[in-house]
């Protein structure tokens, strides 16, 4: 209470400084849901002592003008919300974001404004449910690419890793249902195991400013959020069927939700996805089908004071990998690069043969919260994840059906978060985390495991604060400390241990003394201490403008593949070598965003600069002569890097029915140590959308999208020559050159109809790659072998009931 008094005194002092009674001030702001920050339309804002009223508009905004200096008592109410009464001493124009504890709205489509924030000062973008639904039969990465500054690193068309500002894998935190995803994200060809259909909103935080989830978000954070349910008796659900010509397959998703007036809710969701071989404009991509089954179940209890949420999801993915991408040696690779088409082109088939990946991911959690008067909200959470990854290669004989890689990663964590929000202007989040992780390289694969068995313990603690400095300015700051200890069990050949890597002198403490034939058994053990910090400033001006400034210090410990990889990675057809000498990566990211949130004309300009000390990259190093012939060796190494760029988003209302939306992303990455460009950086890209909407006619919407991805001309030259004994000559291996610029056009249209008594039927028709353009994408790992997908017609039917 002391600080409240202090605050009042300060305010009184300020108001005394006001020279004269001036009735020209404006009280404006936005009303949003306390839980998911969705805007609330039609909330009543009533200044009781002046008897002035207004309601929030479609963007949740309101404005009351011509107010005098002095105390106002504002009552904010909305259907099925607790009333909120604010006493405000008005001394200047005031902008407020008002959170209401709200439920009922969520039964309908959730409306999200583009800049609803996890933290007030962070630079974020959202994907709402309607957008996610149009990606129902695609992956998380495909949907995220629609956000400026987000690209993807892919293996074919189905294995898609999101990339924020050129960074991916261990440098992105993916948080599903408040659980940080651990699914062997270290490999380039390991896509996150999340069913996009189970998400309600996805938030992308560009930068390291969300310390709550970890200290290693060098690239950013992706938060997959479920729906919050209303406190009323209801049973509802939806089913969505999506069918495609390309791949001759589709997806069926259905969910059913039961809610009770008492606050209990229950939700069940299942989706099934099946595709056969996809097709480029000219040929079928033999062995590129998918088979997915996903299910999630959720139940809980919701009230303002307390509640709990239990969630379990199961993802079963089977991805076929282009048959032609299976190569034996460098000469096969050269042949693939030089020939315009993949070596195997068969007729369409639903068969999933080798090479393929089969991944199962279980995620379970229980979260409980309690609100304490004059303090805030305490949340406790326990979760577990099991990730089983099997990779199958083209093999001979008995081993045909045996995976070459078989890993099981188990992760469990306990965490707490305390939100202290009873103070008017200061909000504090603090928490603790304990996590245990175990990787088991399962035997019987007939190969040396690329990633060894290991056990890892993490402990983390953080505190972040958000302070409303004055009426337009907010400041946020946070620090986090993480302790990690990792202990692995791995055999090295004595020769390599002693001579090649000199580990016998560098790490004698890792030796166990056990020698098995020509191998030495070692137990590498590490402990890391990581500090991370964030600093943010936001200014919200009354004319819809806001300015955000962020600094984030992130620290990432090397992942198991960077430390322990040593051997043939079958699915990439190269020998990959990690090093025990790897140290942690530290990044400093600065970003600024100037935004105008307005449906007539809005924009966001977001320049950023990221300096990464000890950036770990996997680059071509050499070739080795094996019985298969010349074989590439890739090494992990550590350099200093910088990545900077700008993301620009623009929206403009052209007329009542036409809207324009576009974005541009420019990025440059540099390897500062060697003074060359950084490997695998996305090229500049631009997207334009023109949308026609007619709310009167079945909510008709027609969207034409154009996207151009420019050729990446800044790439490091890791080309080399190798001897081809069959041709008896040296051949040049051009693995670095990038594919040319390409432009794609996509068309999307949708209409809604009333169905049954209370349900709605939404029909969507879209065409992807309208002009059937042949192209290759620099960030597709299979770009040496085949073109990207050709034209696709898609029909979606969604029934809400």
């Amino acid at each position, binding site marked *: 209470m002391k600080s409240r008094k202090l605050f009042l005194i300060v305010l009184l002092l300020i108001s005394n400084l006001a020279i004269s009674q001036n009735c020209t001030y404006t009280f404006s702001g936005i009303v949003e849901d306390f839980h998911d920050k969705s805007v609330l339309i039609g909330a009543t804002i009533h200044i009781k002592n002046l008897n002035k009223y207004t309601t929030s508009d479609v963007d949740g905004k309101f404005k009351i003008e011509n107010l005098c200096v002095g105390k106002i008592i504002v009552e904010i109410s909305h259907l099925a919300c607790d009333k909120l009464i604010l006493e405000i001493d008005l001394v200047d124009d005031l902008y407020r974001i008002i959170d209401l504890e709200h439920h009922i709205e969520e039964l309908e489509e959730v409306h999200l404004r583009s800049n609803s924030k996890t933290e007030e000062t962070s630079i974020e973008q959202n994907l709402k449910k309607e957008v996610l639904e149009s990606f129902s039969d695609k992956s998380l990465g495909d949907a995220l690419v629609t956000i400026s500054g987000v690209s993807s690193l892919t293996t074919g068309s189905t294995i898609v890793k999101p990339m924020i500002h050129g960074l991916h894998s261990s440098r992105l935190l993916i948080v599903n249902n408040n659980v940080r995803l651990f699914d062997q994200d270290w490999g380039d060809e390991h896509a996150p195991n999340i069913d996009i259909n189970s998400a309600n909103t996805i938030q992308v935080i560009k930068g390291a400013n969300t310390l709550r989830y970890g200290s290693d978000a060098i690239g950013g954070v992706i938060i997959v959020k479920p729906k919050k349910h209303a406190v009323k008796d209801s049973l509802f659900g939806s089913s969505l069927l999506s069918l495609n010509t390309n791949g001759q397959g589709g997806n069926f998703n259905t969910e059913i939700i039961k809610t009770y007036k008492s606050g209990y809710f229950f939700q069940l969701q299942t989706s099934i996805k099946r595709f056969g071989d996809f097709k480029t404009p000219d040929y079928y991509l033999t062995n590129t089908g998918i088979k997915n089954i996903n299910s999630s179940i959720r139940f809980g209890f919701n009230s303002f004071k307390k509640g*709990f949420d239990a969630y379990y999801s199961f993802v079963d993915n089977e991805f076929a990998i282009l048959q032609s991408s299976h*190569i*034996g*040696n460098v*000469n096969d690779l050269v*042949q693939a690069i030089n020939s315009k088409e993949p*070596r*195997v082109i068969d007729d369409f088939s639903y068969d999933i043969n080798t090479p393929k990946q089969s991944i199962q991911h279980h995620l*379970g959690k*229980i979260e*409980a919260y*309690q609100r304490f008067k004059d303090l805030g909200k305490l949340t*406790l959470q*326990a*979760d*577990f994840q*099991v990730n089983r990854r099997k990779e199958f290669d*083209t*093999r*001979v*004989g*008995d*081993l045909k059906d045996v995976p070459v890689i078989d890993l099981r990663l*188990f992760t*469990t964590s*306990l965490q707490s978060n305390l939100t202290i929000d009873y103070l008017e202007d200061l909000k504090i989040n603090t928490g603790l985390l304990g996590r245990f992780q*175990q990787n*088991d*390289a399962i*035997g*019987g*694969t*007939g*190969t*040396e*495991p690329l990633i060894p*068995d290991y056990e890892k313990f993490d402990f983390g603690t953080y505190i972040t604060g958000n302070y409303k400095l004055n009426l337009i300015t907010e400041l946020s700051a946070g620090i986090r400390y993480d302790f990690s200890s990792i202990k692995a*069990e791995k*055999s090295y*050949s004595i*020769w*390599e241990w002693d001579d090649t890597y000199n580990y016998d002198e560098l790490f004698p403490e890792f030796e166990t003394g056990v020698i*098995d034939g*020509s191998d030495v058994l070692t137990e590498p053990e590490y402990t890391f201490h990581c500090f991370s910090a964030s600093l943010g400033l936001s200014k919200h001006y009354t004319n819809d403008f806001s300015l955000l400034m962020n600094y984030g210090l992130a620290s990432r410990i090397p992942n198991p593949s960077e430390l322990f990889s*040593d*051997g*043939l990675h079958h699915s990439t057809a190269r*020998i990959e*070598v990690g090093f025990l000498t790897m140290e942690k990566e530290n990044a400093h990211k600065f970003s600024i965003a100037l935004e105008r949130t307005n449906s007539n004309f809005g924009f966001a300009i977001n320049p950023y600069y990221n300096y990464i000390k000890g950036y770990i990259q996997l680059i071509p190093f*050499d070739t*080795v*002569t*094996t*019985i*298969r*012939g010349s074989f590439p060796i890739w090494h992990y190494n550590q350099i200093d890097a910088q990545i900077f760029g700008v993301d620009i988003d623009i929206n403009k209302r052209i007329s009542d029915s036409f809207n324009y939306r576009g974005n541009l992303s420019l990025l440059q990455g540099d390897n500062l140590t060697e003074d060359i460009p950084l490997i695998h950086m996305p090229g500049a890209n631009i997207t334009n959308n023109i949308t026609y909407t007619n709310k009167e006619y079945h909510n008709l919407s027609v969207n034409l999208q154009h996207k151009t991805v420019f050729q990446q001309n800044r790439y490091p030259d890791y080309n080399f020559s190798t001897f081809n*004994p*069959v*041709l*008896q000559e040296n051949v040049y291996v051009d693995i670095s050159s990038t594919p040319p610029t390409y432009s794609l056009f996509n068309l999307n249209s949708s209409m809604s109809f009333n169905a049954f008594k209370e349900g709605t039927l939404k029909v969507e028709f879209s065409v992807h790659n309208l002009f059937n353009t042949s192209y290759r994408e620099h960030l597709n790992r299979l770009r040496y072998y085949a073109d990207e997908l050709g034209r696709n017609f898609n029909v979606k039917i969604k029934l809400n009931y």
Partner: protein
Amino acid sequence: MKTIKLLALLFISSLVFTGCSDDDHDDDHDHEEEVITTLNYTLTNGNDVVVLTYFDLDPDDSVSGTYSVSGNLTANTTYTGELTLENANDEDAEHIQEEIEAEKEEHEFFYTSTISDITISKTDMDDNGNLVGFDTTLTTVDAGTGSLTIVLKHEPTKPNDDNSTNAGGSTDIEVSFTVEVE
């Protein structure tokens, strides 16, 4: 009190999950089963026996393998060639060869030499009547020095023009010996 009970439940459940996952640490360290560590190409003409050997105990490390040739070939001679493959890491070292023989339809060897007058022809066939190449006939003419390259393709187009570059498939073996005909 409810919250406390719930917390207890959370903790217990997490312990249970941890307990379940903790499998016993047996020795599940794998040895390479599939690899070919040894290739022997034995050329025989009566008592004139020449063995070409490629050996690499761990083909997946960053150390190259070794070549050895037991002697020189004789000019104007016809040899019977026999190719054998082994995995020295496997107790049953010849198992790998048996497996490839069992899938002859999906495999084919290709032999080339820079000594232009050496001819090598495959003499064994798979069930479809296409050449395989475990058994060969090698004929020398004039003296000379050059290379002898052996390629094994997995899933090549069969039949083909006996050129490994045009045959497609992926390369399982590509070794090149230096040989002398005297």
